[in-house]
């Protein structure tokens, strides 16, 4: 019998207390199977970004363990397998669009020729060709989002983590990003996505995890959640499970 493939992400007993005493996560457990698409939903301050930061070695964890495809998240292998697009745009202001991708590829161990080829691919895929030689501070908000996503995918990660990738993005671009993210998932990439747009979570994700106060409250398919909470819509589930009103849905196809 072949060994079962380890989950793309395995979080065990993860706690994070920030230096100011804020407890953002408490004994958090989560397992994300290889090839799945998980949506993380929860109100502001629920701990979503903290969870993601723990996976990507961006915070010092207080307790617990994080494994990426069976390897400790701080290992070289795990780092190479994860691609992250952060909630807040964090581009290198000294680099052009092209350099942003190239240097990221380099940090992640890609050979130069390969990185060049991949950067060109990403620039085309995210429609950034016209801005290839422009420095990042001169990009529009939407272009920065696209570049952020392109950078996350640059080194061909097996687990892609997208923290509110469509925040502040116009309707057209959102639909475009959805299409791209879906295709990525179909190609076998595991995706973890946070969003405040419930329809986005429902449209994209296989499963949804509801987080509140640093704890996992429920985790199921959208369908399963509706059944469990005897709700008609995901928004109703959100209210019943988390006790707070659901975030406003994005304006429907107005654009």
């Amino acid at each position, binding site marked *: 019998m072949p060994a079962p493939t380890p989950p793309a992400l395995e979080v065990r007993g993860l706690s994070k207390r920030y*230096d100011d005493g804020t407890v953002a996560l408490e004994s958090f457990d989560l397992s994300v199977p290889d090839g799945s698409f998980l949506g993380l939903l929860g109100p502001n301050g629920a701990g979503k970004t903290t969870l993601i930061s723990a996976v990507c070695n961006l915070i010092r964890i207080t307790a617990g363990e994080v494994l990426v495809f069976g390897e400790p998240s701080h290992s070289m292998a795990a780092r190479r397998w994860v691609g992250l697009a952060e909630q807040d745009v964090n*581009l290198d*202001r000294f680099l052009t669009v092209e350099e942003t991708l190239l240097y990221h590829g*380099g*940090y992640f*161990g890609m050979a130069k020729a390969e990185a060049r080829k991949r950067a060109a691919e990403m620039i085309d895929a995210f429609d950034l060709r016209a801005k290839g030689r422009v420095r990042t501070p001169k990009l529009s908000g939407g272009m920065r989002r696209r570049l952020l996503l392109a*950078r996350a995918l640059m080194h061909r990660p097996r687990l892609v983590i997208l923290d509110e990738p469509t925040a502040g993005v116009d309707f057209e671009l959102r639909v475009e990003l959805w299409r791209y993210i879906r295709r990525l998932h179909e190609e076998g990439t595991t995706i973890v996505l946070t969003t405040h747009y419930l329809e986005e979570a429902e449209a994209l994700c296989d499963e949804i995890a509801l987080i509140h106060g640093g704890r996992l409250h429920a985790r199921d398919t959208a369908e399963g959640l509706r059944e469990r909470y005897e709700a008609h819509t995901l928004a109703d589930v959100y209210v019943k499970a988390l006790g707070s009103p659901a975030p406003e849905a994005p304006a429907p196809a107005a654009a």
Partner: protein
Amino acid sequence: MSGARGLGWLARREVLRIYKTWTQTVLAPVVSSILFILVFGLSLGSRIREVAGFPYEVYIVPGLIAMAMVQAAYNNNSSSIFQARYDRFVHDVLSAPMRPWQMNLGFNVGGMVRALAIGLALLALAMPITGIGVAHPFALLLAVALGLVLFSAIGIVIGIFAETFDHSTFFVNIVVLPLAFLGGVFYSVGQLPSPWHELSLVNPVFYLVDSIRYGFLGASDVSPWLSLSVVAALAVPAYAWSQWLFTSGRRLKA
């Protein structure tokens, strides 16, 4: 191999940053140091007796080059890492498959490269202007290397601890510049009366200037072994401190 490429690209990024802003990062400090050499050396030089057997305009060159270099190493690294933290671009590096020593070294390289560019440019200009030469190339290289490690690493440490951009300029204005002016850049501390002479001997910048002056002129106030040892004894813990910040994630990671 693991992480070696990442280190290479990070070092390259730091150099690219200097290159893209070279008028501020290299040209400006070269011009201001040359002005010092011209104004102080050539104008005062005719009125001041020789110092330690050297014409004044020659005597001040090693100290001025040393100060230009270590200040550049410090300024470069403190502002580069501060900006990387401020823009949170540093996350791209912290999450990359690199080891902490590679991240630390990569961020340190920028200051050293910038300092060397400035030092070589100043040397190329000062040689024809003042006729200065290099008496002990090996000692000079060693002194420069130790001085750059020291100030590059301090730049990283301050840049990581700084909460505002002013914090990092504060350090240079309040600590480095006064120590430099009191460290024998413009005079031989041997000429000073007590207690200024003794006080100079507890100033770390004095040892750096003295060791670099020995490399250029072959003359120094104290034994070059002593000055090199003092600079090394400071450089090692400074670098270890910046390394510790990357290893532990203190301040860099919430």
